[in-house]
């Protein structure tokens, strides 16, 4: 989230699209109801299903899953055509005026530079024209036909209301009504918030779905302001933190990146991470990259990371592929190229697509290690559960070690919420049986591995032997010790250059802010964006002062928010060019002539003069990007692509199947249904229900009471056509598998008409499996296709094809 849950109360219009906040985030959704009740805010829901969010909406429109980009570009087209643009914001705070290289173009669904064999673009033309002064060329009059604004105007012109109707199936009048409601927020005194979640990410073009809405928000001037923003509603309690801490194949904590094998040495690595400002006087914050990186290396390897060894640069692994994400991991497993796999509080057999492939992959491991508080399907993938998990244990040679861990109620530490608040919690109960904390388990694995290397030697033991491990009890580092390490500390005294008798930083002290980090090895910080969370003043994450001066919803004294306790990102953009709030009734920060101050921590140097420095300091341009240069693999503008399994051909570019640059493994391609397949005629989508949390709460008796049994949802029309009774059994199958489910026949799903073709929708909740308190059932992932988003490999769970028929129930039911 750019903003916070509590900020949503400040909005005038909530658009829930690509998510279902009432269902998945009820307590956060409270703030929508507050905005409605107290500000007269309106709620729009756009979804293939009439959801629980829709139940309390002011306006609902249906949309075919996987067509959101067409809808959103249609909204942009509407705003441009009807001059519903917050012009001051767009001109000053976006790259609308930046001139793009001549080579760049878009035609027939493809941008310049496409290589069909590699399924990738040469993105060199997707960039600004750089002037002789070394800065990007800008035409503030927006007259240059090659400026971003004019390219955008042209790019979205095809997405007329009629085209949106053809692609999305959304009735034209409903689409226009929504455009009208959204366009009102182009006024500086009206804001709209976008609340989305996996309904947008779980597509082969998920990242572009989000970009499209971010562009809408920029055009309306809604980023950085109270009640605005792009609000990703994260799914898990600490998935934000896990991502912040870089627990991904290609990340280093704080969104630094793991080197690729093209970056043979540290200087090469740093050469592409200089982030020189693209405009005069602009602050480009990533210019501090080296400080963050060196401090990270010092946190990892302490004294062993020296200037002489480039702070142990070579101790980091180097990537040969863009990422070793979970889909690639299981593909490698399937190919027999992996031997040992750890699952920490994670149940991939339920969570990733194509269960059959996942089970085959796990069976090819030598050792599977499970760390979990609960039984999982993954831990028992080898166990026979009849139709729900037909396995032959004798044929599966994988050894499985299942380790019992503590749960939230029994451990201590911090979690990062969707609004980037790091909130500390305390242990309340004794763990059951022999359950131990994850840090105990990891510490022991590390210590034993280190001991083996110390005794036996082996492949490159240095990074293991030298890993900083100076905890009071090496077998179980405490949460406080680890938090202090993440925050960062001074390694060696730093003296004031003007007065060498004064210490600026004193060795051993906790750092107060990432501004103090240094690239000479004198500071260490595990995760620079968290710096400030545990300072000499104590544990900032444990703060519990819920006062809120000005009733803004920022709660600056409650816990700690990264970065630097900032609650609304890009908050400089809440003010006009002169530093005055766009909407005085919703002041967040303000330039008082000498400095920035207000209810939030300014997202800019406090003394940076309004007209000198652009607000988006994480971009070298200082402005936000309507045109995203080469940052995304599938285009600098979003473009409509159908899902890999689609009931209709791509109207805009009929030859293109799916996202042209999404990674598809060879074996999986054969397992996709063809476009408009008569064999699999129905558009399916999978989703959560409010009564359950993923695959956890089926272990919970109470939640299992509230939603006991696996079901699918279909329209009354389809039920009639297929002779399926409400509450009766049906069989649903895709090219990858087949499930039996109870059927809920509902008015909340209606067939859509897309380009003259009736498209029926089959809804498939995800929460059941063969373990737990709830009735045994199938995971939706028996059906889903094994393909991810082109940029970040999020599986395409939201749009695929199935067939359905009335069926008898399972024999054992």
């Amino acid at each position, binding site marked *: 989230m750019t903003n916070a849950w509590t900020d949503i109360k400040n909005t005038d219009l909530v658009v829930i699209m690509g998510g279902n906040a009432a269902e998945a985030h009820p307590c956060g959704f409270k703030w929508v109801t507050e905005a409605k*009740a107290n500000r007269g805010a309106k709620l729009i829901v756009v979804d293939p299903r009439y959801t*629980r969010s829709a*139940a309390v909406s002011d306006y609902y429109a249906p949309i075919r899953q996987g067509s959101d980009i067409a809808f959103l570009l249609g909204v942009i087209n509407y705003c441009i055509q009807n001059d519903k643009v917050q012009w001051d914001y767009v001109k000053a705070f976006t790259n609308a005026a930046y001139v793009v290289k001549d080579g760049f173009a878009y035609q027939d669904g493809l941008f310049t530079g496409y290589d069909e064999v590699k399924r990738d673009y040469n993105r060199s033309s997707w960039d600004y024209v750089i002037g002789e002064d070394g800065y990007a060329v800008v035409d503030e009059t927006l007259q240059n036909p090659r400026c971003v604004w004019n390219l955008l105007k042209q790019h979205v012109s095809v997405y007329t209301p009629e085209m949106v109707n053809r692609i999305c199936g959304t009735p034209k009048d409903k689409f226009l009504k929504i455009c009208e409601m959204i366009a009102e927020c182009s006024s500086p005194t009206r804001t709209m918030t976008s609340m989305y979640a996996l309904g947008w990410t779980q597509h082969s073009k998920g990242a572009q779905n989000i970009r499209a809405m971010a562009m809408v928000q920029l055009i309306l001037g809604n980023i950085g302001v109270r009640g605005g923003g792009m609000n990703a509603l994260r799914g898990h309690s600490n998935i934000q933190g896990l991502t912040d801490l870089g627990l991904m194949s290609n990340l280093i904590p704080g969104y630094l990146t793991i080197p690729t094998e093209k970056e043979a040495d540290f200087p090469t690595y740093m050469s592409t991470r200089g982030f020189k400002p693209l405009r005069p006087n602009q602050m480009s914050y990533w210019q501090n990259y080296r400080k963050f990186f060196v401090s990270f290396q010092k946190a990892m390897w302490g004294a062993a990371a020296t200037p002489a060894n480039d702070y142990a640069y070579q101790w980091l692994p180097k990537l040969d592929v863009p990422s070793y994400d979970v889909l690639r991991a299981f593909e490698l497993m399937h190919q027999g190229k992996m031997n040992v796999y750890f699952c920490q509080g994670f149940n991939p057999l339920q969570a990733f697509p194509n269960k059959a492939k996942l089970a085959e992959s796990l069976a090819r491991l030598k050792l599977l290690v499970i760390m979990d508080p609960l039984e999982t399907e993954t831990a028992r993938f080898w166990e026979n559960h009849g139709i729900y998990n037909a396995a032959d244990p004798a044929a599966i040679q994988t050894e499985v070690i299942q380790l019992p861990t503590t749960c939230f109620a029994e451990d201590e530490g911090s979690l990062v919420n969707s609004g980037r608040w790091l909130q500390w919690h305390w242990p309340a109960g004794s763990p059951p049986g022999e359950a131990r904390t994850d840090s105990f388990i990891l510490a022991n694995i590390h210590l034993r591995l280190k001991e083996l290397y110390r005794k036996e030697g082996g492949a490159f033991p240095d990074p293991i032997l030298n890993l900083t491990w100076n905890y009071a009890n090496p077998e179980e580092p405490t949460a406080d010790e680890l938090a202090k390490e993440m925050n960062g500390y001074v390694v060696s005294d730093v003296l004031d250059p003007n007065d060498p008798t004064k210490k600026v930083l004193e060795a051993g002290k906790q750092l107060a802010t990432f501004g103090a980090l240094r690239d000479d090895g004198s500071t260490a910080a595990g995760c620079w964006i968290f710096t400030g969370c545990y300072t000499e003043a104590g544990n900032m994450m444990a703060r519990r002062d819920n006062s809120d001066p000005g009733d803004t919803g920022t709660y600056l004294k409650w816990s700690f928010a990264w970065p630097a306790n900032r609650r609304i990102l890009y908050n400089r953009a809440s003010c006009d060019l002169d530093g005055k709030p766009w909407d005085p009734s919703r002041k967040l920060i303000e330039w008082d002539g000498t400095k920035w101050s207000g209810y939030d921590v300014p997202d800019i140097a406090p003394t940076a003069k309004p007209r000198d420095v652009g607000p988006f300091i994480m971009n070298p341009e200082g402005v936000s990007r309507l045109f995203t240069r080469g940052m995304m693999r599938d285009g600098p503008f979003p473009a409509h692509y159908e899902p890999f399994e689609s009931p209709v051909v791509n109207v805009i570019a009929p030859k293109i199947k799916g996202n042209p640059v999404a990674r598809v493994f060879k074996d999986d391609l054969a397992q996709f249904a063809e476009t408009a397949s008569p064999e699999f005629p129905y558009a399916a989508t999978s989703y959560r229900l409010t009564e359950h949390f993923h695959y956890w709460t089926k272990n919970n008796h109470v939640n299992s009471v509230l939603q006991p049994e696996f079901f699918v949802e279909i329209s009354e029309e389809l039920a009639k056509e297929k002779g399926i009774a409400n509450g009766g059994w049906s069989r649903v199958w895709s090219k990858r598998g087949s499930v039996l489910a109870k059927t809920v026949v509902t008015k909340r799903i209606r067939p859509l008409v897309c380009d003259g073709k009736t498209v029926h929708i089959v809804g498939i909740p995800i929460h059941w499996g063969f373990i737990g308190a709830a*009735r045994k059932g199938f995971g939706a992932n028996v059906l889903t296709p094994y393909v991810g988003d082109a940029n970040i490999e999020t599986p395409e769970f939201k749009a695929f094809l199935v067939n359905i028929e009335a069926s008898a129930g399972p024999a054992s039911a």
Partner: protein
Amino acid sequence: MFPAIPNPPVTPPAPKFGEADLVRRSASEVTPPATRLTEVAKLIDVSKCIGCKACQAACIEWNNLHEEIGYNTGFYTNPPDLTENSFTLMRFTEWVNPETDNLEWLIRKDGCMHCADPGCLKACPSPGAIVQYSNGIVDFVHENCIGCGYCIKGCPFNIPRISKVDHTAYKCTLCSDRVAVGQGPACQKACPTQAIVFGTKDEMKDWADFRIKDLKSRGYDNAGLYDPQGVGGTHVMYVLQHADKPSLYAGLPDNPRISPLVETWKGVTKYVGLAAMGFAVAAGFVHHLIAGPNRVSPEDEAEAEKLAGGKPT
């Protein structure tokens, strides 16, 4: 937002109401309390309800209930009906508004309404099994409950259920144990959107007005408060988008009142019946006094002997 009630105490004060605050006690008389408590109420704003069932979960957890894991029956309503272990239940209705042609998903939290004139209490034959406090809470006292199920027949809302385990009647207590220490009911505490709020009945009516104004501004011309006077008003009230048609909401009674059958049974039948039985006994006495015993005379015996003896076989 409606101000949250502070967290519950772990060193609670003595309960703030009790036996002395009873205004009604089933099958028995109570001395009216000298001072009445302010009436409390739970307000359920259907227009804010997202049907998440947090209230159901919170209710089960607070009251240590153990509901069975059922089946999917084609609806989101789970379990399919109130039970002795589910004091509250979200009932889902899909309704296409004929005026707008828009689908509306009407989700109502069902449960005890805590009527001012409780039919359950009226029907209850067991002294003290059902009590009503002057703050409006109608509570079941399980030690006194005999499990006859009369409360079920008395209730205009079809709420109480008899446990198969201990054979006593169960329903929402309005969390009397929580209210007694200054808390709101568990469902209200949990409700994510504050579709459920709790306070004095007057506060709740004011809050309802505030909500109804908002709904009217959004085109719900018939939005209104459900506080049915047929049962003297209730201490659980609804804000409905379509207050003119309560029965849209999974059969919420349009004009609930204690059934005339129950009124007759617990009213005239009781008195007339007792009178009739008393009369019958009295009539016997009177008759006996006046007519004296009807004895067989020696002549009768003689006649019989004559008859029997005269016909030897």
